[in-house]
């Protein structure tokens, strides 16, 4: 669509690790995770994570399906991915009801084949009829969502027996999780191939790809086939979630999946997008719904969810605008390191939520398998005033805890000191080959910090901490 995004991708030269588009999804993920855990600690239980996996997997897989074609460029935002999921769902249920599809193998083969066949048709139309992909997907959206209602006029039917207990989500390790992991691993393996490089090249500049000899038709068909496979898997996960057929529910996945994809930092103009980002985007959407469900707004619940979806979507899109600035100053941003660092924080929040609430007798009742159940029955609505301060609750420590805090204070201060010193040492070393004042300034500040710490901790005392000796 626009040239601006692709240009800004390529502008600054950078290391392979640097991928600042993940900055927003990762930050949002941990923010939401912390909120969710504080609001409802039962999220981090076997059942909580299990139900999260069950509910979020169709969305994640739908986002993957969308991602594969969006990377292919030409503004291929496949609006028909939701109806396609619904189509596989309803035909699966009807065929199963007719006694045709029984074994798991047949069901999987059927779902993937239907998804791939539809996307193959899509690709052929885009290539040979040469209509804009968005038109094809719009056409597919209308046609399939109409067809779904014809095949199954109202929700009903039963999923195969072996699939029925998948949707309970009582434990983390369900077959649905296996599907999710395999799909993610499959995409990661796929990114290592030359085919993926061609795909990205085609997505960011189709003409350049064509002139440099990339078989763009084959690549486009391949991208659509992969998307179709993911859509088939998403349909299976969706069927497992609702354990029946639903002609209109699947259609809603289109808008959510597009939102998730954008939240995950992919570019709708093509050429950029990754499995990690898409995964985080989808999980973020799930967490938003979850957090809002815990607030229990009653009759206006779905409106608040809409408002939050829209606002977060727009804000995260606007945040991608400042990424070029971040990129300029943060040459070696590593998403992995950032993720690990924030996970430590999140882990501490989880530990706090899980154990402190229990020790203070405020344990929230165990939430059920489904988050909507959790909102409507289990959690009591909270006061209006409490909404604003609840996530930042103030602890009421007893004697023993105060003593522990006093004992822990030096350790924390020591760690902080170490971090500050490491930063300044790093600056001093990295600047040492230049003829500037920077290393000297760094060393001086370092010395001042150490001196300050020494003065603060031991006013008039003789035994200096071993750190300062090492630093000087």
């Amino acid at each position, binding site marked *: 669509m626009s040239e601006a995004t692709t240009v800004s991708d390529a502008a600054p030269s950078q290391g392979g690790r640097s991928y600042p588009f993940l900055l927003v999804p990762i930050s949002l993920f941990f923010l939401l995770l912390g909120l969710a855990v504080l609001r409802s600690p039962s999220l981090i239980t076997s059942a909580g994570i299990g139900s999260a996996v069950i509910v979020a997997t169709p969305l994640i897989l739908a986002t993957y399906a969308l991602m594969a074609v969006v990377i292919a460029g030409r503004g291929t935002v496949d609006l028909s991915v939701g109806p396609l999921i619904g189509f596989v769902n309803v035909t699966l249920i009807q065929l199963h009801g007719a006694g045709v599809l029984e074994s798991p193998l047949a069901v999987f083969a059927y779902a993937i084949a239907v998804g791939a066949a539809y996307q193959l048709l899509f690709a052929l139309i885009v290539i040979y009829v040469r209509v804009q992909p968005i038109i094809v997907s719009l056409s597919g959206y209308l*046609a399939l969502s109409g067809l779904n209602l014809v095949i199954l006029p109202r929700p009903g039917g039963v999923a195969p027996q072996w699939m029925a207990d998948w949707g309970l989500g009582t434990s983390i390790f369900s077959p649905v999780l296996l599907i999710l992991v395999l799909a993610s691993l499959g995409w990661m393996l796929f990114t290592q191939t030359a085919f993926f490089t061609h795909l990205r090249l085609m997505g960011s500049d189709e003409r350049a790809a064509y*002139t440099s000899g990339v078989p763009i038709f084959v690549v486009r068909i391949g991208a659509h086939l992969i998307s179709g496979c993911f859509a088939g898997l998403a349909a299976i996960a969706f069927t497992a979630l609702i354990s029946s057929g639903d002609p209109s529910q699947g259609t809603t996945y289109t808008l959510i999946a597009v939102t998730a994809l954008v939240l995950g930092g992919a570019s709708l103009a093509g050429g950029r997008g990754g499995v990690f980002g898409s995964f985080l985007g989808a999980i973020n959407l799930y967490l938003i719904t979850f957090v809002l469900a815990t607030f229990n707004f009653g*009759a206006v619940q779905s409106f608040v969810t809409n408002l939050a979806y829209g606002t977060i979507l727009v804000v995260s899109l606007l945040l991608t605008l400042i990424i070029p600035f971040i990129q300029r100053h943060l040459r070696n941003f590593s998403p992995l390191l950032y993720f690990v660092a924030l996970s430590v924080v999140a882990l501490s929040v989880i530990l706090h939520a899980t154990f402190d609430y229990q020790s203070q007798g405020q344990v929230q009742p165990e939430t059920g398998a489904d988050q909507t159940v959790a909102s409507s029955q289990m959690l009591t609505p909270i006061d209006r005033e409490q909404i604003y301060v609840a996530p930042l609750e103030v602890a009421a420590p007893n004697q023993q805890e105060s003593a522990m805090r006093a004992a822990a204070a030096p350790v924390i201060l020591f760690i902080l000191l170490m971090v500050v010193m490491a930063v300044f040492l790093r600056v001093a070393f990295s600047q040492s080959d230049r003829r500037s004042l920077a290393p000297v300034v760094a060393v001086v500040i370092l010395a001042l910090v150490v001196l300050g710490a020494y003065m603060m901790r031991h006013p008039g005392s003789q035994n200096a901490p071993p750190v300062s000796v090492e630093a000087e």
Partner: protein
Amino acid sequence: MMLPPTPSLSLSANIIGLVVGIILTVIGVVFGFAQGTSVQFIILSAIATLAAFVWGWRYVLGQFVSQAPQTDEGPSEIRRVWLQFRPALIGLVAILLVFLVLSLAIENFFNIWNVISLLILLSIVVLTRTLGRQFQENRSAFIGVMVLSGLFSIGAMNIEGFASTMNIKSMLLFAAFLGIASVGQTLVALLGGLDLSIPFIIGAANVGLLYLISLGVPPWLAVILVLTIGVALGVINGLLSYRLQGQALIVTLGTGFAISGGVQILTSIGTAYGGNVFGTVPGWLSNLAAMNGVTFGMPFPPVIAIWGLIILILTIGMRYTVYGRYLYALGVNRTSAKRVMISELKYWVTMYAISGFFAALTGSLLLGWSGGGFIGVGDQYLFLTLAAVVVGGTSLLGGQGGYGFTVIGVLVLQVLSSFLIGIGLEFEWQQFIFGLLILPMVALYARSPHIRTQI
């Protein structure tokens, strides 16, 4: 797009056209009196017939005046015809096959009306591929008009009451709603953007207007307020999506979600009914948009007249004013438009503001039509406005098309849907056929060039 060269015809051709037009008009007037319609209606339709015919005569003939017949050497005659009309021939054979299969499969399918319908379909395909080729520009409009007249005549033959005044009035009414809603989408598409917040603003305006009226705000003030808020939301849309033009689709979707959620929260605070607002709609608003509305004594709802006015202003404005030409200039090439000091930001935001205004207007009018506020009233417009723009022939990449095209698209969609209802299809089948038909309609004229020609 440039202004087409004014077609100049010889004097005799002009006179013949005028005479034929007058004869047609007289026939129409005689029929009108014979059927006992009101006088102002007859006068109006007589003027309309004459004007439309004379314009069509001059315009269509003018297209061929400058066309010199080309005789180039090539393969044999049959082969050349095959190469030139390959898609049309394939289409012909496909339609014939479908007809054959249907006649064999369905009892009583093979009757005189269906055969005539088949002939009309075939002639549409032939005409669009042969005659349509002669048009240098506005080809999509020609094809659209062909499809429209074909669909209408098939419907009039096969369905009882399809061509009745009542049905035409209701088709025009719904077309007016869709047409007003698509104004913004067209203008935004001319710049290469998309506005998916239209259905949400329609729903929000619908609910919000009734809410304001039920609060005791005078209705005229409430309408003005709602329209102003619509413009404000459009400006917000434009400002937010300006730097994110490639992702305008998703930005506007996000703001749409937020708007519809926010309005519902506002209107349902303190009530037990989530999302439903109750109140009475003032009479003039109902008259504006209801089926039995009256415009200056004539028996059609004023919203159709309003739509007609909008069409007039927009088509003339976009063609002959500097603002319209600048809009096309921006849509075709941003860089060169910037070189001649056209502010991209100004136009982008203005178009989104207009889009918000017309969405809010549609929402208000729909309130007059239905008499009750409902947030989901705009939902069908999410893809219908897009479909109308695309079927009409406005490129989503910007710079090509215009509101006149969208009007044709709106009419085609409306006639098609009322045709499908007429032959007794359920909503879901309608949607299915809609989806399947958009593709070939677009493929008729909006194909992008092969990549090897773009290098």
